[in-house]
Structures are given as structure tokens and as C-alpha cells.
């Protein structure tokens, strides 16, 4: 099952969009913690596309489906963005995809963000570190597609580190 939302890239729409994603997940399971993880991920992704889109329309899709490795949750966002932003986000996403220690990477980006103005990539690093979701992305022309996904049983079994 899935839902696909197309909306104006306006920050005030982001809380409603992310809550709708959380409500969608409640149909799948009653585990409040993994719903909270997905809520955070959806919010951070929706905020990013609302902030960086260069057009009047962005989209976010959430789906739960059976794949070969098990039942999987997937969130996909699409937006058009400037070449400068695309280069920056691609560099950050590659780093997130390659890291074996997302917690340490998040700590580094958090510390770095304290000295920097503007975009820090912190939301993306938070998704990787806190939600346990894995990234994929493509850039075609000026369109960025980000996919985050995880097996449901991995989401449900992930506990706080302390």
C-alpha cells in the first residue's frame, strides 16, 4: 500500500504532511517507536524539499511492500533544485550512504553545524543515525529523488543506544 502526496513547497505544510505519513504507518503496525522514527524521517525530508525546491510542486511518497528481503518501508521524495544545492546534497548523501558509523558522522555534522550558517545536512544525518533508514538517490537533470527505506522488523527492533 502507498500514498503519494504532491504539495506546494511551503514550510507550513510540512507538519501536516509528516503527520499523514505517521498516520499511514499506524495502519501497518502499532509500534509507537518506529512510527516516531518514520515521522521524524518524513518531516526532515519534507522540510528539505520545501526549503530547496525551485518549482511550485514537490512530492513525497510512502509505501509498505513485501520485497525479497522482507516487508519494507520506503519514503521517496522528488523535487527540482539548483545545481549548487544538488552538488551539495549529493556529496552529503554519498557520505551518509558510505558511512559505517552513522552516529559518529551525525555527531561531526552536529558539531560543524554550530559554526555554520544555512544548510547543514543535519536532517539527513539525523534520519540515518536515529531512524535507521538507508538512503538511495538519483539526480536527473535538475530533479533530485531521494529514497529512504528499511525492513520493518529492523525498524521495530532498533532501540536507543543508551
Amino acid at each position, binding site marked *: 500500500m502507498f500514498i503519494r502526496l504532491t504539495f506546494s513547497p511551503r514550510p507550513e505544510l510540512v*507538519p501536516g504532511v509528516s503527520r499523514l505519513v505517521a498516520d499511514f504507518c499506524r495502519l501497518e503496525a502499532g509500534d509507537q517507536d518506529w512510527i516516531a522514527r518514520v515521522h521524524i524521517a518524513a518531516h526532515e525530508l519534507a*522540510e528539505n524539499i520545501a526549503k530547496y525546491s525551485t518549482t511550485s510542486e514537490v512530492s513525497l511518497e510512502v509505501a509498505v511492500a513485501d520485497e525479497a528481503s522482507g516487508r519494507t518501508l520506503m519514503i521517496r521524495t522528488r523535487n527540482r533544485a539548483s545545481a549548487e544545492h544538488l552538488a551539495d546534497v549529493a556529496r552529503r548523501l554519498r557520505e551518509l550512504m558510505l558511512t559505517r558509523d552513522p552516529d559518529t558522522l551525525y555527531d561531526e555534522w552536529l558539531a560543524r553545524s*554550530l559554526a555554520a550558517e544555512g544548510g547543514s545536512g543535519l*536532517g539527513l544525518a539525523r534520519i540515518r543515525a536515529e531512524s535507521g533508514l538507508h538512503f538511495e538517490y538519483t539526480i536527473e537533470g535538475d530533479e533530485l529523488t531521494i529514497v529512504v527505506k528499511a525492513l520493518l522488523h529492523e525498524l521495530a527492533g532498533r532501540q*536507543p543506544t*543508551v
Partner: protein
Amino acid sequence: MPTLREVRTTTFAIVPCTDMTTPSVRLSGNGDTAAVDILDGFLKDLHVQLLGTNCPQVHVDLVELYFMNSACVRTFASWIHKVRTEGTPYRVHLKTNARQAWQRRSLEPIKRLAPNVVVLSADGPSAP
């Protein structure tokens, strides 16, 4: 004792508790984009007042905070960084809701920034 005004919007609130010996602040609602500037301004004022009154500690109750975006996390981290680097550091006790495990996950990186400043504690039993 710091004197700070409470801040309320339709979805977010910061309420200082001034009737206690240790300064205390309660956050509730949703810490999303609309809350970032409010939180930032409040924490800056709080920091100035705590330094000015030489308070050794402050309690921050997050039990009824249901969401926090990365910009709010960064705002908290910025405050803690200032506590660690400006003046005489005071202790920051963050009380989380054990039923909302995301709070602990989101605040642990802030504690790692300043382990001698931040104390994390949980209120109530954890979620089943």
C-alpha cells in the same frame, strides 16, 4: 532566580517555573519549523540570566514534547555549546519521556557534545 516569560503558540509552549529553588522550564507540543526561532530566543535569554545569577543548574522538562525537528535539535546543541564555552558552566538536566524513545535518541548526541554539562533522565516507564 531568572525571570522569563512563558511563550505559547497553538502548537508549542515553553513555560518557566519560577516557584522552585532550581530554575525549571517545561516544553510541550511540537518543536517544528515554527518553533525554532521561539526556542532559540528563549534559550538565549535563559542562558544570559542563568549566567547572570550564577545558577548551578537548570531543569528542562521535555515529557510533553512530542516532536522536535533537526533545527530545534541544533538550537539545543547551540545552547549547550554556549553553556560549555561561555562563563562558568551550569548543569542542564533534561527530563525525557520514557515512552517516547525518540527523545533519548535525539538528545544523546547533545549530551555527547558536553557530557559534563548535560544530564539525561527519563520520566515514567518505557513503551512496551
